[in-house]
């Protein structure tokens, strides 16, 4: 059984302009010790998807569907029960490490509080444990530095502290939402290396959320590519990078500026902008930006499924895939 099994997840936001269809029917699972990357542009719904699972949607948001964590449905839990799971069994790391840390408290205070509250450790034990975690994320002189305030840390070190706090309770699932997007490439490389080490040395499951496919090439087992609140393609990391099926995935791969190839050509961009989630077109939401769009794309695209959880949602046939369903989202669906 997978550690997390999500099915039929939908997220809606009530706004003065109308209902924003942020997530439109997501099904996926994360196995024990598995690292899943969820990739998509801003507005793809990737963050709202996990916020819904964690019960952290904004007030005007509502979610439906099932999210079984270790067999229990997170969507049905009371806020109090969810609080017991968040932080202890599922930890979350957000994009901006500065706003996630309390600037008025030392790192020591913030870490010890978590360890004492969630694990019921005594102060001394909690402190020793916190120092050990800082060492694990390679903060130099953790004994000394734990006494400092967040502003005395660099951006990269703050994000490593956030990861250390996330790891304090040895969660079964770590969710990292764009953990290195606001950081320098050099620091991104350090965070990637850290995630890679966690993945190898622990049994923890990890969900990585990012807009940059390149950033997760090294450290994911499986990838879900999202567009307009839907999965458009999923497969193993090798499937996605070496055998991409969906034109959107291919576009994302082509738009990455890369140093491992000699090329001075223009970068391949995906033209246009993500769709307005207030008025999703019927049919394929990517069709206006797709170089391979045809008349058929005005209809909801079929869902192709292959072996090992491989899937693609497009009129183009998927290698070794079978059509399982044509689903409608947008005007006439959902």
């Amino acid at each position, binding site marked *: 059984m997978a550690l997390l099994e999500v099915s039929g997840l939908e997220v809606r936001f009530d706004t003065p302009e109308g209902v924003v269809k942020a997530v439109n029917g997501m099904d996926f699972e994360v196995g024990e010790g598995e690292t899943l990357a969820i990739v998509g542009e801003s507005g793809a719904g990737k963050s709202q998807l996990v916020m819904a699972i964690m019960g952290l949607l904004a007030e005007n948001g509502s979610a439906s569907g099932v999210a079984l964590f270790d067999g229990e449905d997170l969507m049905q839990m009371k806020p109090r029960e969810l609080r017991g799971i968040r932080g202890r069994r599922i930890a979350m790391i957000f994009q901006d490490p500065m706003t996630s840390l309390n600037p008025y408290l030392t790192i020591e205070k913030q870490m010890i509080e978590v360890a004492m509250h969630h694990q019921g450790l005594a102060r001394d034990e909690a402190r020793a444990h916190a120092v050990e975690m800082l060492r694990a994320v390679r903060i130099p002189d953790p004994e000394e530095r734990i006494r400092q305030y967040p502003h005395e840390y660099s951006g*990269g070190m703050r994000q490593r502290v956030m990861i250390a706090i996330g790891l304090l309770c040895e969660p079964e699932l770590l969710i990292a939402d764009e953990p290195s997007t606001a950081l320098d490439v050099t*620091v991104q490389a350090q965070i990637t290396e850290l995630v890679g080490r966690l993945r190898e040395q622990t049994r923890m499951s990890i969900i990585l959320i990012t807009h940059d496919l390149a950033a997760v090439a090294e450290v994911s087992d499986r990838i879900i590519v999202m567009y307009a609140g839907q999965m458009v393609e999923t497969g193993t990391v*090798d499937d996605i990078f070496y055998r991409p099926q969906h034109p959107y995935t291919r576009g994302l791969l082509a738009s990455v*500026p890369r140093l491992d190839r000699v090329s001075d050509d223009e*970068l*391949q961009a995906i033209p246009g902008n993500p769709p307005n989630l207030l008025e999703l077109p019927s049919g394929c939401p990517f069709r206006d930006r797709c170089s391979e769009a045809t008349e058929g794309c005005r209809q909801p695209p079929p869902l192709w499924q292959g072996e090992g959880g491989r899937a693609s949602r497009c009129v183009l046939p998927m290698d070794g895939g079978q059509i399982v369903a044509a689903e409608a989202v947008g005007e006439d669906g959902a």
Partner: protein
Amino acid sequence: MSKPVLRVQDLAVTFTSTTGGLLQRRERQIRAVDGISFELNAGETLGIVGESGCGKSTLARAILGLISPNRGRVQWMGEDLTGLDEEALRQKRKQLQIVFQDPVASLDPRMTAGDIIAEPLWTFYPHMERLQVEERTRGMMKMVGLLPNQINRYPHEFSGGQCQRIGIARALALNPRLLICDEPVSALDVSIQAQIINLLRTLQRKLGLALIFIAHDLSVVRHISNRVLVMYMGQAMEVSAKADLYRRPLHPYSNALMKSVPIPDPELARRVRAESWLTGDMPSPFQRPRGCIFHNRCPYRINRCEADVPALRRMESGDWVACHRAEELDLSI
């Protein structure tokens, strides 16, 4: 190429930081930009790359005269900008424009796209006919890939990439000769980054602009730069032609930046980056290392690096590097 339009010589900006209370008041100097020199030709693009805090944005602001430098000169078309008074400098800014990092935050949310783009026109040409301004604004919108009929929309009605197009249209409204782009794509999705980089490339060729493109990522500037200046703690580590830098960087720091760029190829990524070898963080600006400023993070350091400051010197190739070991190290990619 023609002769340089911009010549920056030994430019330095120092900030003073005050800490402590009344009795223990302490003033410390931060050398944000520490003796940068380069030249830029018309129609040329210089990429400036370095980690946050290396002084690249301060350098941009000092070139535009938004911050006054403590030392050095900025010559624009042969004229020293550092000696000009407010008004003369203001007039010069018609020719020198900037695009900022955060496309949404840098636009006034209460102004329409049209007003934002037209504002520099009203400021510098207050007697311009309304119709003429509108025509120019629509023309600018078209040029940067926006629909002229979106002229009355507000920034929140545009996506991040479109907001950056508005910022570019505004910067180009006065027909500048130099455009400085300060991390123009780092807040954007990868798919949209490529759009903006391609747009800037096209505009630069079409308008013959001199362009300075600032980024923290070497992969981003590659597709747009002729030369690249690699900065670290306020100093130039390397200034190289693009073809040279990406084939064989001269400075270990350039090499480190290059190795940090994620590779969108799982097998290659695992092989190449078994570990990221740029360890540690940038030192505190108050504790600048002696000798080579990069030596404490450099895997190639020798005793000499801890004692002597390497000068930025010209190699046979015409590239510039500040490393004692540039000749002997082979950092080929």
